């Protein structure tokens, strides 16, 4: 049944470019998909290890910058006479490098930041993101500062002579984002149901207890941070080669907040939560724009929704729906399973 469901969902998602002809709508779906990947990566930390990282956009931005820089090539004066120059590399390699760079920075942050917990960890993670932001603004030689990195090449696979796959057009990019998202989902799902994942959940529920039964808490927290950061880096790299311009605004705190809202609204301890939350908050700005609401008003609405969700659905939408379904089943045992279940599925 679950397998049928996932095949149906993936099939539906894959069919979207066939019947959605509006490039504008496809664009929204692509950016939403990129944000869903970032939100899923945040959920690994926030939902499964219980650490609220408010510097998550740093990994997204590092992935974007690292990938964009390597694909463009760069020159940096390490000292006055020693210049480090890197020639442009193929985009797929750059994207891998962006992922790696983000994972590495996740390792560094995890190693140092998990000496503290709770509010202090939150503040360290915000500080980290702000420092990275200020470096992106000020290290003009490398990042071009506020002038931004322009003309970032799009992803191309294969060789022009034989078979070349170009991800310049929107339907192609949609499939790229969709398949990346599926891969990330599967990785997270396997991770959280593995031994390491159970250790993460154990330390979320009761850290001293987890420690007392021999779980190396810091190790698992760092592991979660590295995986999470690398995934955020993939999302950043996908973003960089899609919009093809990267400036320091990519580190805006508001993007972290958007990811947090997606995760918390959808349900932070579930696999599907970030996806549900991501779809809602990816499409909501468009809906609000259609209602001719100013961008400031849109953010006010976001803030208020965040407050309401925390008050009314502290667990998020997905767990609330599950509870509702379970309680309905319990109260009416005679109705049986819904008729519109997937054909061929066992009752």
């Amino acid at each position, binding site marked *: 049944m679950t397998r049928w469901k996932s095949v149906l969902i993936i099939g539906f998602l894959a069919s979207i470019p066939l019947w959605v002809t509006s490039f504008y709508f496809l664009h929204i779906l692509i950016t939403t998909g990129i944000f869903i990947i970032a939100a899923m990566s945040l959920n690994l930390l926030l939902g499964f290890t219980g650490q609220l990282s408010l510097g998550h956009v740093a990994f997204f931005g590092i992935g974007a910058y690292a990938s964009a820089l390597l694909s463009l090539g760069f020159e940096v004066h390490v000292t006055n006479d020693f210049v480090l120059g890197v020639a442009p590399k193929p985009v797929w390699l750059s994207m891998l490098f962006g992922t790696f760079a983000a994972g590495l920075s996740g390792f560094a942050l995890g190693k140092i930041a998990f*000496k503290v917990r709770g*509010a*202090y960890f939150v503040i*360290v993670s915000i500080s980290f993101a702000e420092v990275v932001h*200020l470096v992106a603004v000020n290290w003009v030689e490398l990042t071009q500062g506020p002038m931004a990195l322009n003309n970032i090449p799009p992803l191309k696979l294969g060789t022009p002579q034989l078979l070349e796959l170009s991800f310049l057009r929107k339907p192609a990019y949609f499939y790229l984002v969709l398949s990346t998202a599926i891969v990330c989902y599967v990785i997270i799902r396997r991770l959280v149901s593995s031994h390491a994942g159970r250790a993460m959940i154990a330390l979320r529920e009761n850290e001293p207890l987890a420690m007392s039964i021999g779980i190396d808490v810091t190790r698992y927290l760092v592991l979660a941070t590295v995986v999470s950061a690398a995934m955020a880096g993939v999302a950043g790299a996908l973003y960089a080669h899609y919009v093809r311009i990267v400036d320091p605004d990519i580190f805006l705190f508001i993007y972290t907040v958007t990811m947090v809202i997606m995760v*918390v609204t959808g349900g932070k301890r579930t696999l599907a939560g970030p996806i549900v939350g991501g779809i809602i908050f990816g499409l909501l700005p468009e809906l609000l724009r259609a209602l001719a609401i100013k961008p*400031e008003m849109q953010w*006010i609405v976001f803030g208020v929704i*965040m407050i309401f969700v*925390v008050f009314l659905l502290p667990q998020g939408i997905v767990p609330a729906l599950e509870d509702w379904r379970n309680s309905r089943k319990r109260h009416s045992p005679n109705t049986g399973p819904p008729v519109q279940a997937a054909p061929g599925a066992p009752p």
Partner: protein
Amino acid sequence: MDQFLQHCLNALMLGGIYALLGIGLTLIFGIMRVVNFTHGELYAFGAYMMYALVTRLGVDFFVALALATVLGVALGAAIEFVLLRQLRSSDIDVTMLVMIGAWIALQNAEQLAWTGVAQSIANPFPADPIVLGRLSVSWNRVFVFVVAIMLITATYFLVNRTRLGMAMRATFQDRETAALMGVRIERIHTVTFALGSGLAAAAGALLGPVFVVTPTMGDLAAAKAFAVVILGGMGNLLGATLGGFILAFAEEIGVGYISSGYRDAMGFLLIILILLFRPTGLFARKERIS
């Protein structure tokens, strides 16, 4: 040498404001265990009230300063009453999320109300600076410094010498026992949050006329306030005051001798370093970090 002394003088002037921002936040952090992300918005609110009163309505500068502070106190009390009171038994992550929501809503409300254009506020001080040998400092900065020190001293007096302050300190040490002794915790929380917010609004009202007023001005102020609180140790008034001056000094030296682009990075770097090597703050007696 002159340049160094000038940097020290600037740091002293700036430190007063950082300390003022810091003690408001450290009170809230220490007594209520709330990471107050709206602190910067209260700062911006104070500055905008100053702008509205002085530039739009033509109220006297000093009256407007007092009024902006009072309005900040009122807004703080309202936030506590509407949001935080309902969340007193929830865990710290939930409270943080609500405060982030409130921060976004407040900041964008400011942008909606006053537009994103930077506004300036006229001040009644002479434009010529005070010159002491080769050092100089503007009248406005001196006024800001003096008022900030007065407010900090008044807060000290309130916390350490009054009955209300005793109740606040008792709540800080042990909430349950304080409640058993007849301290009305709810009221202490409202008073603390209103007081902290009022101090932030006062800081904004003081600095608004020095710089310009923009909707996002609160973000940096909040970041600096957090740096000051962490430098000084949570809930430590003296620590926050000294932390304010240390941060200002580090920034001025950084600007003077490293690069002005990284001025705002100083606070964040200090936060990271302090939390890594001395997570209880520079001046902590005993404080646990959970």
